[in-house]
């Protein structure tokens, strides 16, 4: 039997790994922040509430109520836009900071973050110039990351040797050292020079750290390395590498599958059964579990336990058929309705309109299948957009409610009844209400288009999953029939 999943898993790992933290946080340097308006925007920045941070920021700017001496006002604004996914706006502000008469430190930090933006878009020449311009005046705390970015820029140009040299300039205690080590290792694998990459991945795979991002990186390195050993028939090395992956982490399924293959390919079927049994009992909507359900009876067959093998193939065939029916049903559903009808997005929002949500599913098999699908990396951006659109819808509704309340106050409160500006307030309020309505209608249309897009992508992904299940089903049926044939021959 071809172990197809591990080939796919291996290939998908050979991509440059860029730490999430790079995009998730802009660490503006500490300053004396005296003005509460500014400090409040800063609070929104840290609690990942960029929308309210930006609204407050623009409002305070317009009211001229931000401290004049806060030189990094624009840096904070650019950071908020960056984190809110409005990269072009962030880029323009960073460029303006560099062009304007700002202190050298502020310009250096702006260039530093521009380099990050260019890493995101994969633009090596622009990244190089931004890094050069940020090298002086950058705070010491950003030095390791600066070196890391230089290494990444070289990797964008496929200059692995130069990237490798950068590692010497990064403190071995810094997490940037391990991020760059992983990427250098992965780049060597990608350029078909795995021997050179091996030592880097081994280094990351044995790092001693307790932070979540470091542990995930460590698992990822061990998975990449494990599948590399597997492909190169170094089964003992593969097994010991897979065993280093945490069982409760996101890579545990891939590790269990690989561990089974490492033993199985070394003809140690008895040991292969252990990880595959664990995996087979997990949620069958996962591709790795589907493969384990095919691999496990294969191992039993190899151990001459035909009866057990037959029973397991039968069980797997039944499961694949159920899955195929579910996928057919899901495909029909996804062509006619919104996928968001199947999952529950907890709509509890706090006072700031920040969604506290985690996507949940109701308890049916179909919902679980959809959840597995949407949890895949390729849907992350679409889900983030969906969440942002929902937050905007909620905001507009609240603003409209408030505007009605304001209109009531204007009409009925003694304070406003004889107010000289009452008429102009009323006029402005009507204008605002009109604008809210206009944006609401635009948003409704956009939500519809977005849902259609998600629907199309879901259909495509479901179709792909269906092909996998069909392939497993056919392999399981074939192996089952073969076993039956063998049994019949023995009987004769």
């Amino acid at each position, binding site marked *: 039997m071809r172990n197809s999943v591990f080939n796919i898993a291996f290939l998908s790992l050979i991509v440059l790994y860029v730490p999430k933290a790079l995009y998730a946080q802009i660490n503006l340097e500490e300053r004396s922040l005296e003005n509460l308006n500014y400090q409040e925007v800063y609070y929104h920045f840290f609690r*990942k509430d960029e929308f309210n941070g930006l609204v407050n920021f623009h409002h305070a700017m317009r*009211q001229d109520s931000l401290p004049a001496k806060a030189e990094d006002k624009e840096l904070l604004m650019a950071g908020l836009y960056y984190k809110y996914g409005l990269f072009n706006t962030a880029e323009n502000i960073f460029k303006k900071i560099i062009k304007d008469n700002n202190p050298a430190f502020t310009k250096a930090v702006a260039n530093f973050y521009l380099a990050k933006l260019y890493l995101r878009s994969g633009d090596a020449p622009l990244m190089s110039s931004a890094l050069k311009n940020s090298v002086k005046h950058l705070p010491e705390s950003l030095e390791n990351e600066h070196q890391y970015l230089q290494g990444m820029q070289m990797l964008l140009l496929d200059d692995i040797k130069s990237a490798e040299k950068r590692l010497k300039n990064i403190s071995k205690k810094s997490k940037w050292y391990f991020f760059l080590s992983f990427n250098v290792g992965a780049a060597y694998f990608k350029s078909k020079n795995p021997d050179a990459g091996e030592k880097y991945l081994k280094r990351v795979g044995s790092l001693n750290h307790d932070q979540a991002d470091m542990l995930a990186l460590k698992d990822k390195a061990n998975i990449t390395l494990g599948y590399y050993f597997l492909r190169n028939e170094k089964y003992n090395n593969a097994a010991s590498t897979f065993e280093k992956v945490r069982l409760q982490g996101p890579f545990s399924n891939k590790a269990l599958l690989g561990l089974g293959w490492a033993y199985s390919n070394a003809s140690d079927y008895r040991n292969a059964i252990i990880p595959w049994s664990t995996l087979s009992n997990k949620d069958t909507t996962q591709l790795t579990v589907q493969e384990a359900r095919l691999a496990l009876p294969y191992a039993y067959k190899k151990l001459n336990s035909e009866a057990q093998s037959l029973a397991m193939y039968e069980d797997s065939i039944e499961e694949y058929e159920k899955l195929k029916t579910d996928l057919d049903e899901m495909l029909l559903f996804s062509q006619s309705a919104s996928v968001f009808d199947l999952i529950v997005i907890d709509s509890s929002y706090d006072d700031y309109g920040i969604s506290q949500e985690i996507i949940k599913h109701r308890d049916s098999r179909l919902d679980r299948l959809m959840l597995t699908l949407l949890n895949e990396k390729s849907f992350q951006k679409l889900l983030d957009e969906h969440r942002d659109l929902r937050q*905007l819808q909620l905001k507009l509704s609240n603003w409209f409610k408030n505007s009605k309340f304001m209109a009531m106050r204007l009409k009925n409160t003694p304070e406003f009844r004889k107010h000289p500006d009452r008429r102009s*307030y009323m006029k402005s309020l009507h204008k605002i209400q009109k604008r809210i309505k206009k944006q609401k209608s635009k948003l409704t249309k*956009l939500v519809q*288009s977005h849902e259609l897009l998600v629907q*199309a992508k879901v259909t495509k992904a479901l179709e792909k999953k269906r092909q996998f299940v069909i392939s497993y089903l056919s392999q399981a049926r074939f192996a089952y029939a073969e076993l039956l044939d063998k049994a019949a021959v023995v009987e004769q």
Partner: protein
Amino acid sequence: MIRKKKIPVSILVLFLSILLSITNLLADEEEKIAKQIADLKHSIIELGSDVKAMEKLLLYSEKSLLSVYLSMDAGQLFELNDVKLVIDDKEVASHRYADREKLGFQKGAAQLLYRTELGLGEHELVAVFSGTGVRNRPMKRGLTYKVEKTNQHNIIEIVIKDDVSKQRPQFVVRKIE
């Protein structure tokens, strides 16, 4: 015995080319929608700033406003987990802090904990802070403060400070004029 059927190459090529064109179409559509979302976000942020200005004028009466902010100065001796705010014996706000918010406080952020309209005169404000102190010891501290509501927007800031000599946190109220 069941045998696998071979799929003709021409059908496979056709299937792959259809898949590829669908993929390209989807990528174009995704990019188009992402741009529309970005444009809309900009417009709504701008609108939000105008709504906020309007709210400031019409939603509250500036004269009867009281705003309570929370910030931290150093904050090495106390890790804030949650806060409860009581004004005149009524619980008006509570908040549980995520790690990123705690980091924000350490970097100089301030949270608008509560904003309300209050009548003139004296009011009692009680804030209860829960968290961990030195050597990870659970800690609960209360602060009582008499606010004199005047005929203007009264702003108070509760600052959590480190009392290094006594190795414990200090809760200080600062009036912002």
